[in-house]
């Protein structure tokens, strides 16, 4: 039967009775509408929060479909250290996850680890070769920022050399995070993959010590900035490896070992004397790790002293729980005022109780001493873990710094031509970040630290940023247009509206509360005996189940709901053969017939359809 307008020339032309000979397809009811639906993917809160700029919703859909290798490649576009992040990231994505109110945030963190651990090709994804011939770039520091920068440059064809002060690569990943959180083999493999792209890592090369002699082999020789003049660009990612001081009498005593140094020795396998009764001072992840290492090293009694309350503790929630589970006692609202020694050895720590006053400029309530509340804690070792600082002694007058950090702009550029910086050294924890700090959403999946800055993911993002900037610079392009430092940078962005989808825009008719899948964990009694990994990750079944809980906020995942509810049958599925997942326009509206009723937009479970004024489209 025809789909055109039918014109009868005469009665003889017509059927004898009122009977159809054509279809209503001739009638383009699209002329009725004054608004039209448009498929428009928006930004889910997880993507918005990820400091490494991962496209979380995209790869979660791949996990749902069982395409783990594809998911891995998707993450690797933005972040080469997925096994690392899947273990140590404070997962701000989970804090913002809209599923929090429907049974708990998606366990994105554990899912990332699952993807990283799937068998499959270990190759890093290719990129278009944009490096000018023979361009060489120097990266100072092989922590996450440096590794990320090196990776993004090397895959574009740059010859990258990383100079690392410590005897092994990895920065804080190597020396700050113990292996029960980040197994060495995971870290080694991910660094090796980057090296396999042709990146050279020269350990034992500390910026700021003895000048290098031409031709001298890598070793205990040092570097100055001038020695890097031969490189077309330099990325400074020296991190913050200096411990902040306690600032109280007695802290020079033997038995007071700064947390970073303690962890470094433990992680590098160097001998370290552990006390029997240990006090760790501080509330961050370093403090937690120091305490847990002390337990594993044989300390009988480990106490953490924190000057604010649990609510203000910056360490990741799960870390605090695991630490307490391992028998570490935490005393809140207390701060040390004096290290007591006897015969030069630490015997006690005098402390003062605190109360919380008004919030400071970072938003956390200031601790105020309660006079007369001193008490003494018998300890034989004190590990201060009060925060980190960068060693910027190598800087010359051409590179600006402020508040102990290298000043960078949105492109990651320092004040010196061709020198970039990133990671903790450029934006450290003490600096106000571009986005105000957020509190944890609750016991399920909430992270503690201020958004982004100071985390591994942030460092990875900043390394990526600098690599993209360097690539532009060396190709003679402008460095304008980078997103602000608090915003993330993408390598392989989908065409997505920057509007972030809030929970109110999710259509709750399509979802019920389903509990979050917990990750397996070794028992506390078991795990304190060694440095084997504490968390056990997801099985495939658990991973699929958890990924399926993802609401896919703002991102079409081909659920067919719009197609199902169109009263005018004018939503068509396109190309079933195309790989599924967001970013592929899986449907198209037949605007010849769409009346603009808006049922599709109203029903879309995840706010992926907008209604727009028709006149805007008809010019």
């Amino acid at each position, binding site marked *: 039967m025809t789909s055109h307008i039918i014109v*009868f020339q005469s*009665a003889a032309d*017509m059927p*004898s*009775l*009122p*009977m*159809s*000979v054509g279809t209503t397809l001739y009638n383009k009811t699209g002329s009725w509408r004054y608004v039209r639906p448009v498929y428009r993917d928006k930004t889910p809160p997880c993507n918005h929060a990820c400091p490494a700029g991962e496209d979380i919703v995209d790869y979660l859909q791949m996990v749902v479909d069982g395409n783990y290798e594809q998911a891995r490649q998707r993450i690797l576009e933005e972040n080469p250290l997925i096994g690392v992040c899947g273990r140590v990231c404070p997962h701000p994505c989970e804090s913002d996850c809209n599923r929090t109110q429907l049974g708990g945030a998606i366990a994105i963190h554990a899912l990332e680890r699952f993807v990283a651990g799937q068998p499959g090709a270990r190759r890093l994804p290719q990129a278009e070769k944009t490096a000018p011939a023979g361009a060489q770039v120097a990266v100072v520091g092989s922590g996450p920022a440096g590794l990320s920068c090196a990776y993004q440059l090397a895959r574009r064809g740059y010859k990258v050399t990383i100079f690392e002060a410590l005897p092994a690569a990895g920065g804080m990943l190597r020396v700050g995070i113990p292996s029960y959180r980040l197994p060495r083999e995971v870290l080694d493999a991910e660094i090796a993959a980057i090296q396999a792209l042709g990146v050279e890592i020269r350990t034992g090369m500390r910026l700021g010590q003895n000048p290098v002699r031409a031709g001298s082999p890598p070793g205990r020789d040092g570097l100055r900035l001038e020695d890097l003049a031969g490189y077309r660009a330099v990325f400074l990612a020296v991190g913050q490896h200096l411990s902040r001081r306690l600032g109280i009498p007695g802290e020079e005593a033997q038995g007071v070992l700064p947390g970073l140094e303690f962890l470094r020795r433990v992680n590098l396998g160097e001998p370290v004397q552990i006390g029997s009764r240990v006090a760790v001072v501080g509330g961050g992840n370093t403090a937690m790790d120091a305490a847990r290492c002390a337990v594993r090293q044989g300390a009988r009694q480990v106490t953490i002293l924190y000057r604010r309350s649990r609510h203000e503790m910056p360490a990741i929630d799960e870390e605090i729980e695991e630490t307490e589970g391992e028998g570490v006692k935490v005393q809140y609202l207390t701060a040390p005022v004096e290290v007591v020694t006897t015969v030069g050895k630490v015997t006690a720590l005098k402390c003062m109780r605190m109360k919380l006053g008004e919030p400071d400029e970072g938003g956390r309530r200031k601790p105020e001493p309660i006079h007369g509340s001193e008490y003494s804690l018998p300890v034989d070792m004190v590990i201060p873990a009060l925060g980190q600082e960068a060693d910027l002694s190598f800087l010359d007058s051409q590179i600006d710094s402020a508040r102990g950090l290298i000043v960078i702009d949105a492109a990651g550029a320092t004040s010196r031509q061709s020198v970039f910086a990133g990671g903790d050294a450029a934006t450290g924890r003490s600096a106000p970040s571009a986005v105000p700090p957020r509190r944890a959403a609750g016991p399920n999946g909430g992270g503690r630290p201020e958004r982004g800055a100071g985390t591994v993911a942030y460092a990875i993002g900043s390394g990526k940023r600098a690599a993209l900037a360097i690539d532009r610079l060396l190709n003679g392009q402008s460095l304008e247009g980078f997103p602000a430092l608090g915003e993330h940078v993408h390598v392989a962005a989908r065409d997505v509206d920057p509007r972030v989808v809030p929970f109110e825009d999710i259509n709750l008719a399509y979802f019920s509360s389903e509990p979050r899948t917990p990750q397996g964990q070794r028992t506390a009694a078991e795990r304190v005996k060694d440095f084997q990994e504490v968390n056990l990750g997801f099985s495939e079944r658990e991973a699929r189940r958890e990924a399926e809980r993802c609401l896919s906020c703002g991102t079409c995942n081909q659920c067919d709901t719009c197609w199902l509810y169109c009263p005018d049958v004018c939503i068509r599925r396109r190309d079933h053969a195309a790989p599924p997942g967001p970013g592929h326009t899986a449907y198209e509206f037949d605007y010849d017939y769409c009346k603009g009723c808006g049922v599709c937009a109203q029903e879309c479970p995840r706010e992926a359809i907008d209604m727009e004024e028709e006149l805007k489209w008809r010019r």
Partner: protein
Amino acid sequence: MEKVIMGNHAVSYGVQLARAQVIAAYPITPQTQIVEMLSELCADGRLKATFIKVESEHSAMAATVGASIAGVRAFTATSSHGLALMHEVLHWASGGRLPIVMANVNRALGPGWNLGGEQTDSLAQRDTGWLQFYCETNQEVLDMVIQGFKIAETVLLPVMIVLDAFVLSHTEEPVDIPEPADVDRFLPPYQPQFKLEPGEPHSFYGLVAPEHYMELRFKMEQAMEESLVVAQRVGIEFGQAFGRSYDVVERYRLDDADLVLVTSGSITGTSRVVVDELRDKGQKVGLLKIRMFRPFPVAAVREALSKAQKVAVIDRNISYGVGGIFAAELKTALYGAPHQPVVFPFVIGLGGRDVTPQSIHSIVAYTERHDAPLEPIIWMEVKR
């Protein structure tokens, strides 16, 4: 095979021989024997048809329409108020171009309740696009049911076969019931041109805008006009097959008649007797029986009356404000004809009041006595 049967059963035999496939009917006096016999025939398989025992005449015709457009031979029967109740559906059948055959037993309309013979019920439906045949005898009834299907299926219009209440419906007469094989030869199985067919997705009877409606109705009228010729041809074929041929009108002793009685239905039989009596006395009286009322056989009527001086139309019906309907239609047919006899429009026998040979004699006497009718409607045998 000859049997003495009532008119209602003649209908039933006709339907059985025509091999109707679906029957939907609701009982109403004096039609009930039609459906009762058909129920029995269906129940014991002598007629392979589905009998739908609907709950009203409106539903009866709707179901018949449904069956017909589904592509099968469909039949129903009714009378009087039942016919009136199915009025809107009659339009659906004709506009739907469905070859349905319906038997209507002419019965008076109330109030008050009246079961007697009167033609107003069927004539009140004369604008619905149905063919109408008025039967004089039970034989004619049976024969017309069979011919009705053949005509209907040729022109794609529904056909109403009309018989008088009690005088025909309940009176037993000898009727020759044809052999099934002979009927099968005369009336092959129904081959619908348009029907509901899975795999051929057409919509039927939907909204028709003014830009198309008139053409469809024009085509209906064309079919209606064609049906006159078809009826004549079928009547001849029937004669060849069964020895009884039919025309749209019947002329009885008409050729040299000065005075012509125009009748329809069973009154024709009574009138024949009177015409014979008067002819025996030397009066030049003739009879024109109008068999096909729709379409009105204008040419045949004009031709038959081309030499008559006076025409007495006997109407057992009335259209209030106009008079006898056959008379009115006949006058319309004569309008513009070269020869204009004087038409005497008689209304008689309403509500089943008996029409006897004496009544016909009175009609003839009046017509002879007067040059023209004394009033627009000549009411016979009414206490004024």
